[in-house]
């Protein structure tokens, strides 16, 4: 009881509450701006934390993590330019919804889902941290391979119009992902002795090119023939979900949050993989109306719940084992060390109120997302009022800053430019840009875990079917791949039976 009271006092004093607000808002702004990321936002806050009380410092960073994770969806929905890698899946349905004049609704869904996902994972973190962290350690290469395959199952929904083109697109993404040094045995692959290619092709610059730049080209062709005032609302204002609306889509909220929390707990997986897997699992429903990829609300809820649930999830192994659950959690872990705390089993003993304080900070930041979301969205809304020639040029410039700032490299800008053209033609010939990105993101985890497991098995792939967790994950992966085809066949048979009767 003492610990709970101390935690409440630690979080709900004016100074700490202010830090939660500032951290959340700062994270949200950085998340919404392509070129700044959640990790960068936390790094920028780091110098301010040196002289702070450790708990206050961690609360500031965790709040920033929550805000950043949600902020990326704002530019995803409004500009088709994901502000953070986690927000890639939100563009699939968020942008089409905004195009239909429902930007406010899409943003409301994103904020509500982000908030729900954060709160869900905060409770899981509080109640089951040590146990879950141990379970996550049982994930090895075979299971990671299965996870990658579950993520790839998205293509069955992303390429609803032409499955073969979606498969080819995913293969192209996987092929691009193999460029650079092979991380298993250090062989240089497809780099043609170009130093800039040795580190591989960053998916953020590909994504900015294929999504944002290609979309600008497309809009240049169309904007003179379309009344743009009908496509985007004059004033973008978040429309929050009512409880009854939430209740109708409860399954998407829960599914997304569970997936996000689990993936967040698994070391080094992170929010971007979580959101893709959640989107994939959601988009299995073929009868959805509107279809996935055309502005389905569940296509926003699932990834948003998932990547924000990964925030709390990723704190579990970070706090209890000292193993970061995501790239951003790795930055937070570094911050722990800088301020003199060592994450791991001893931390919760030495700092008994830490876990409760982080839990309360997560909940508070999640609730404040509604306020921060309104503010940041209204500022972004002004940009949308620009005539398209100005808006299009601005999107390109923002994208360029985003690509360049990744590695301070001109080469990433070239990648963005090239994939702008590739994305344009892919769009015209009905290939799937989203599937290319999916392959590029998941390629590394799939290839490396496949080969690692075979190496562990001394050249045999039996490890995939002898490990119980692996069997479970692979079964889910195979089912998610086959389910759309199976459900089609079941429906066909049903229809045939009805006709014959």
């Amino acid at each position, binding site marked *: 009881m003492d610990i709970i009271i101390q935690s409440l006092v630690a979080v709900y004093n004016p100074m700490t509450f202010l830090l939660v607000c500032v951290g959340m808002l700062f994270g949200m702004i950085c998340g919404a701006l392509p070129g700044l990321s959640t990790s960068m936002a936390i790094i920028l806050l780091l110098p301010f934390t040196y002289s702070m009380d450790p708990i206050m410092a961690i609360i500031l960073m965790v709040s920033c993590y929550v805000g950043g994770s949600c902020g990326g969806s704002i530019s995803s929905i409004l500009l088709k330019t994901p502000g953070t890698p986690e927000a890639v899946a939100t563009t699939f349905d968020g942008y089409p919804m905004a195009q239909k004049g429902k930007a406010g609704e899409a943003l409301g869904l994103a904020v509500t889902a982000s908030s729900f996902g954060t709160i869900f994972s905060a409770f899981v973190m509080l109640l089951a941290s040590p146990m879950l962290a141990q379970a996550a350690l049982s994930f090895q290469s075979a299971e990671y391979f299965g996870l990658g395959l579950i993520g790839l199952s998205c293509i069955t929904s992303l390429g609803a119009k*032409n499955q073969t083109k979606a498969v080819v697109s995913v293969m192209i993404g996987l092929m691009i992902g193999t460029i650079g040094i092979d991380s298993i045995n250090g062989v240089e692959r497809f780099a043609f002795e170009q130093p800039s290619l040795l580190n591989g092709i960053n998916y953020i610059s590909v994504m900015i090119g294929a999504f944002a730049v290609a979309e600008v080209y497309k809009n240049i062709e169309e904007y003179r023939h379309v009344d743009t005032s009908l496509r985007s609302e004059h004033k973008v204002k978040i429309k929050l979900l009512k409880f009854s609306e939430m209740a109708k889509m409860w399954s998407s909220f829960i599914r997304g949050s569970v997936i996000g929390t689990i993936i967040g707990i698994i070391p080094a997986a992170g929010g971007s993989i979580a959101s893709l897997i959640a989107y994939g699992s959601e988009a299995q429903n073929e009868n959805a109306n509107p279809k996935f990829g055309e502005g389905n609300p569940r296509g926003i809820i699932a990834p948003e719940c998932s990547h924000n649930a990964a925030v709390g999830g990723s704190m579990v192994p970070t706090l209890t084992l000292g193993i970061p659950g995501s790239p951003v959690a790795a930055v937070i872990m570094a911050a722990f060390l800088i301020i003199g705390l060592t994450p791991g089993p001893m931390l919760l003993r030495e700092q008994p109120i830490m876990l409760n304080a982080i839990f309360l900070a997560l909940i508070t930041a999640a609730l404040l997302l509604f306020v921060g979301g309104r503010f940041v969205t209204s500022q972004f809304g002004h940009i949308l009022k620009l005539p398209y020639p100005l808006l299009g040029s601005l999107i390109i410039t923002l994208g360029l*800053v985003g690509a360049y700032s990744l590695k301070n490299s001109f080469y990433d800008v070239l990648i963005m*430019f090239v994939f702008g053209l590739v994305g344009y033609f892919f769009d015209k010939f009905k290939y799937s840009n989203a599937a290319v990105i999916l392959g590029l993101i998941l390629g590394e985890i799939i290839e490396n875990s496949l080969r690692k497991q*075979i190496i562990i098995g001394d050249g045999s792939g039996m490890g995939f079917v002898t490990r119980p967790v692996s069997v479970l994950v692979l079964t889910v992966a195979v089912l998610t791949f086959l389910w759309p085809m199976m459900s089609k066949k079941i429906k066909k048979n049903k229809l045939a039976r009805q006709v014959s009767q």
Partner: protein
Amino acid sequence: MAAEIVFNILIGLGVLFYLAQAIQLPATDNPADVLGAGGFPIIIGVIALIGLAMITIHTIKEKRKVDIPMLNLRSVDGRMVFINVLVLAAYVGLLDVIGFVLATLIYLVVAPLSMGYRKPAALAVFSGVTTAVMVVVFGILFYVPLPRGAELFRDLSYLIY
């Protein structure tokens, strides 16, 4: 239809080149690494080729016409997109020479003009304000690296961000 077939052939040639490179990748010393560095690329390359062949056959059968304005320079829309691709190429090329500030200033004037925007005063304000805001927010406030250009432009950029 012809454009799509040409596009598929181009992708196919790219995949064949990728496969040729993958086959030449050195074998690993570790006998347990059955796939080696080239195994996975060969698998995905072959799947991509099979998929492409299926798509091309389907395209030939379907005979669907795809409108691609960028390839039709006789249309106003086509010219507009094509010019914008060139303007962006020039912007990207200039970044490393004259730096972010000047290149962005010029791009934000030229790109809207090439999209048919004809309000010079508004354009000048937009270009100046946007460039300034970007430099202040990204370059000064958040220390985000921005291209500096070469020689004199590089030296000058250090005075700003």
